[in-house]
């Protein structure tokens, strides 16, 4: 009854996209505050920590002062933040406490490995869940549907790392498939990506199947059927696009989970990516590396969510032109 102003098609699209992008930038800024705050929040004196991590045993007051000045720790916190974010924008994420190398360089060395594994896993799980959901809906209540439902139930109840552990122990090693020592190549990523994809696809298949079934019994599907459209035409022309939107959102959310789960996955598959890098840094309290990881994770998450929303915006007229 109460509406906002109606916006016209294309202008509405651009305005909505810009608004959403601005929101993403704000989110990224908020995330960067958290990331930066990790160092001042860390227990103990930052300069002492840095010196200890650099292997200095007997710390003198002079060394402490020098380090404080070097790290800019005597400035007020907002100034420290501005300096920090200024460096980050220039691609300088600081120096690793343990290796003394620039963190940006170490991250860039390991980023491709993680991107390959997670990207492949994401692609495989999307393909797999699309395929399985369409089969399940096509053979509704038949044995393929039952088998797929069993798979989704089991998959949804097994945490990824348990599933990966089982698959690695009983399949990869048991059947001597794949390699244990991965060098981050697409081919090496295939088996772990397939395992992660298979696990992730369980939830998505469930979601897609339910969405497709719901859409198949929706008003517009019913009307299309009553007009004489075939089942296949309804499924591909109406049901699938409409189900794709919530599915897309689920993928966006899941990307955060995938990034957050990377350390565990990489630990199990001994994948030389960012997640493994984070775990090393965690046990050494290597804060610059932890900060860099969190920053990259946050930025990828914000970007993924933005992309998903922009795609949804392009697909769904309801988001561009709010109902009166």
């Amino acid at each position, binding site marked *: 009854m109460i509406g906002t102003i109606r916006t016209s098609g294309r202008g509405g699209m651009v305005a909505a996209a810009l608004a959403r992008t601005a929101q993403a930038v704000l989110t990224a800024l908020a995330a960067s505050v958290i990331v930066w705050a990790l160092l001042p929040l860390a227990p103990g004196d930052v300069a002492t920590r840095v010196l*200890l991590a650099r292997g200095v*045993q007997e710390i003198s007051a002079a060394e402490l002062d020098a380090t404080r000045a070097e790290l800019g720790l005597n400035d007020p916190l907002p100034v420290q933040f501005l300096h920090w974010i200024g460096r980050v924008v220039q691609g300088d994420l600081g120096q690793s406490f343990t*290796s003394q190398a620039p963190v940006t360089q*170490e991250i860039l*060395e*390991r980023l491709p490995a993680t991107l390959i594994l997670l990207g492949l896993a994401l692609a495989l799980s999307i393909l797999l869940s699309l395929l399985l959901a369409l089969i399940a809906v096509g053979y509704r209540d038949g044995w393929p549907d039952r088998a797929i439902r069993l798979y989704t139930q089991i998959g949804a109840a097994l945490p990824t790392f348990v599933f990966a552990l089982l698959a690695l122990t009983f*399949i990869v*090693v048991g*059947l*001597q*498939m*794949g*390699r*244990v*020592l991965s*060098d981050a*190549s697409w*081919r*090496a990523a*295939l*088996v772990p990506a*397939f395992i992660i994809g*298979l696990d992730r696809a369980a939830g998505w298949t469930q979601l897609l199947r339910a969405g497709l079934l719901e859409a198949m019994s929706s008003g517009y599907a019913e009307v299309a059927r009553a007009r004489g459209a075939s089942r296949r035409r309804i499924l591909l022309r109406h049901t699938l696009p409409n189900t794709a939107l919530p599915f897309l959102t689920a993928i966006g959310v899941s990307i955060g989970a995938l990034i957050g789960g990377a350390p565990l996955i990489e*630990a199990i598959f*001994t994948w*030389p990516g960012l997640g493994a890098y984070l775990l*090393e840094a965690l*046990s*050494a*309290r290597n804060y610059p590396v932890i900060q860099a990881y969190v920053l990259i994770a946050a930025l990828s998450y914000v970007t993924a969510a933005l992309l998903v929303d922009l795609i949804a915006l392009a697909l769904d007229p309801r988001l561009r032109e709010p109902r009166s």
Partner: protein
Amino acid sequence: MNLKSLLLGGAVALGALPAAADDIIRMATSFQIRSMDPVKQGFWMQEFGQGELLMQFQPDGSITPWLAESLERVDDTTWIITIRDGVTFQNGKPMDVPAVLAAIAYHRERNSGTQAVLPAEATFTRTGAREITVDTGKPLPELPNILAHESRLMIIDVAPVLAAGEDFEALDGAGIHTGPYRLVSLDDQRMVAERYEGYWRGMPAMEGVELRFVSDANARILAVQNGEVDIALYPPIAAAPVFAATPNLNLALGPLSTGGFAGFMDVANGAFEEVAVRRAVMLAMDYQEIANAVFHGAKAPATGLYNPNFPWAVENYRHDVEEANAILDAAGWERQGDTRSRDGETLSITIMIYPQQPDLVPLSNAMQSYLSEIGVASEIVSVDSVTEAAMNDLVDWDLALSATGTATVGSVSGFLNQYVACGAERNYGDYCNESLQELIGALDVTMETDRRNEMLREIQRILVEDDPYVFNLTILIERALVSDAWSDYEPAVAWNHIKWDTAPNP
């Protein structure tokens, strides 16, 4: 990649792996070699067949010449090193006296470890075509051990190193070492080295070395099992039954090592302020069971502070629960069920371990049950770094477990000066015993072997009977995990994992 085929729909076909017919040594280790920096990372080069030293430590505890032809002691402060003839660096340059002197000077200038053990007043002088005279200034009984220690005086061609400056990547393939394999590439995944055909002892046995850095112990095991590497270092000994039962996995055991898991007691605070409790705890430990059951015979029972192969070693550890109980009873700790208390205070200790040594978990767990036999309650706390936690009092601890060598490359002074001497850098438990302190100081300048051995025996007696502080829980046996084709591989002492003749079974 050995993935045979991946059929659409998830079925995966089976097949046999190609036999490991390549002629390189494929090895996995847990520590990453970060660079070719001769000061900070150079010691690794001794371990995997690149770098060599003037002297070499042997399993029986003796020190023998390596790149040196001989080392003679002239008097208390004068030694003569004769270097081997016909040795060339991997870049073809001869290893002559000036080159060796340059290498020594390089380390003495930059390497704080070298500076710590070599007195500043010591001089190295060329006194012949192949002869270097060393004047140590003050008596330095352990000079042979210093020359045999990988972190002290690795012989390198200094010129390319100086030319490289901070850019150590430039040293890939520069051939600055004299060993059988020349490093050609190094990244955060692997080190690759190829055969050096001009090696002074003859043609190295293998085409090259591929060393993978795999921090996860489980992955190293699976990699051997899966045929991806031939040798994996640092296997968790607790998993010995798995190795025994799994095809293509063999636990290769070598000679007794110079170190093991040592326990340090915090004598400044808590239960261990009392000597009686320390003595009782040492008596409660079942050293036989630790070696044979907890570690399945892949470690040796601790019989004293030192590897029993050393001439000065005293075998004075005993397992006697009754005596331990009697000591505690006599000290007034009254036992009720599984615990003891005195004046309303319960006798309990905290064991501190760290995650990089997974074998500490079963060890500390076993210790808990020994302690409960004498009525000492215990809990386990895991910290990132024992040194950091103990030196900065980050946690309340009573017994810190650490993998520590008591006589690395046969040198006793390092451990005593670093861990046991009053106020030493790693004196975790603020231990200070006057007679021990005197002995340590005297030992540093005593050249005569019998005198030295006598003093060492006295030190071991004090550390068990009078004023216990540090004790071994088990002694390491050198070990590696090897595939069937390499089942004859013998793990070496002093980390010399790859020698010029290291090769698979004939």
